[in-house]
């Protein structure tokens, strides 16, 4: 293949690719989103009402209204888990990310291996891993520290966050032009100083949208904790369903309510992320 000719005066071949988020362009703003959510909620509640028999005890809407406070506390617990997992994972992830861009080849390889491992394994499998292999209590300096299920689950969620944040850090550091490194080196900065004083501050803006994206993913993933026995919103939903007699027509409204809660929480985050992305793109 012939070497590429000089780029001066050349016509570009194709526009750059950026995954544009649907909502940012199609004006499904927060107000319309809540309307859409309300419409979906209505749909989900009306459908089973049509299938209801004449001797129904409580209509789906009444069931939801009755149990909403409980389910919402469950949802708050999900949010809490996601926040703690995000905190832990981000801390560990930044460290791992810095290891990914370090100069020492062994450290880099080990960090790369860890990142790939925790990124490639399904999150549910990681959850099982932590739940089943971490003991239910540890003895530290003679003190018995119980590890309840939800703490183990939070750690289980923090692991993929760590790997994803490490990737984000690595990508952001590498996207800073080499000229910045050269300029810092010619000013006699050490590599560590360059990284912390010059490169990373520039990276923070770039890292924010993908980081928020990871948070949205984690927030939605917390429901998987119900599979391993943690009492969160989905577990409560199943219990509510049983408490209401296990009627099949209540499935759709109850799970629809869960969908609605997550939608109303995650969609504004998503829009904010899109807005930040656009702002940092043009900056």
């Amino acid at each position, binding site marked *: 293949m012939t070497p590429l000719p000089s780029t001066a*005066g050349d*016509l*570009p071949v*194709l526009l750059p690719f950026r995954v544009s988020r649907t909502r940012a362009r199609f004006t499904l703003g927060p107000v319309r989103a809540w309307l859409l959510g309300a419409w979906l909620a209505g749909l989900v509640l009306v459908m089973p009402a049509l299938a209801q028999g004449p001797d129904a005890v409580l209509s789906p809407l009444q069931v939801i209204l009755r149990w909403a406070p409980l389910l919402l506390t469950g949802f708050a617990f999900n949010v809490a888990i996601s926040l703690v997992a995000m905190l832990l994972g981000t801390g560990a992830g930044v460290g791992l990310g810095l290891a990914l861009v370090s100069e020492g080849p062994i450290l880099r390889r080990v960090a790369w291996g860890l990142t790939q491992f925790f990124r490639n394994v399904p999150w549910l499998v990681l959850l099982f891993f932590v739940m089943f292999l971490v003991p239910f209590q540890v003895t530290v300096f003679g003190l018995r520290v119980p590890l309840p299920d939800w703490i183990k689950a939070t750690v289980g969620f923090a692991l993929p966050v760590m790997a994803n944040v490490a990737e984000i850090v690595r990508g952001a550091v590498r996207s800073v032009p080499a000229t910045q490194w050269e300029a810092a080196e010619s000013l006699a900065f050490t590599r560590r100083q360059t990284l912390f004083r010059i490169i990373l501050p520039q990276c923070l803006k770039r890292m924010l949208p993908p980081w928020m994206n990871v948070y949205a993913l984690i927030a939605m993933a917390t429901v998987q904790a119900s599979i391993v026995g943690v009492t969160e919103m989905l577990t409560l939903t199943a219990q509510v369903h049983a408490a209401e007699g296990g009627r099949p027509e209540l499935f759709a409204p109850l799970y629809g309510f869960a969908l609605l809660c997550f939608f109303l929480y995650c969609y504004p985050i998503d829009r904010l992320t899109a807005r930040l992305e656009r702002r940092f793109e043009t900056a």
Partner: protein
Amino acid sequence: MSRVPPADRPIVQVLDVHKAFGEAEVLKGISFDVRRGEVVCIIGPSGSGKSTLIRCINALVPVTSGTIRVDGIEVVDPKIDKLALRRKVGMVFQQYNLFPHKTALENVMMAPIHVLGQDKREVEVRARALLAKVRLAGKEAAYPGEMSGGQQQRVAIARSLAMRPEVMLFDEVTAALDPETVKEVLVTIRELAEEGMTCLLVTHEMNFAREVADHVYFTDRGVIVEHGPPETLFSSAVDPRTRRFLSQVL
């Protein structure tokens, strides 16, 4: 110049064309003719509607009112057979002309095969000849991303010629190129003109217009301000807008 003299009946007729994008009127009543074999250059400041005008002639942009006729085809008719029109009219653009996922040869061969249904081997022979004609023999297997801008534009010209048009439209084809490559494209266009192809160019290349064009139109803000043979227009323009523009670019 040994060139086939233009015939008398116009091959392109533009009559009182208006074009508005929403509230903004871009073309405010353009009328002119192009005779067969003629080379016509349209010059003017940016925003004067030149690119829109050329796109209207090729039915890429619908007109708001007015008539355009190309060799008897009513371009503004909504039920027009676009394929018939585009067989007669070839167009070369300023940027992103070529299909980057195909080689130069494939780019030239694509339309006759997919659109006209012609036999692949015949088309290949013709395509190679066209690439040789634009002085790109040996570049058949190169991709657009591996070629300079000037080379890409010449492939684009060869590609349009593969459809055997009777009129060629050029929309500022050298504006994005650097000076060395501009020349090679202009030489190609000049050779086309000397073979008798009817050419309609929107261009900033005043020297080219002066040497090759039969007629030059100066547009500003959607109207033709002044027109004439290049000798007259460039040396003794009448309208003050024309003179101001020419003094800036010459």
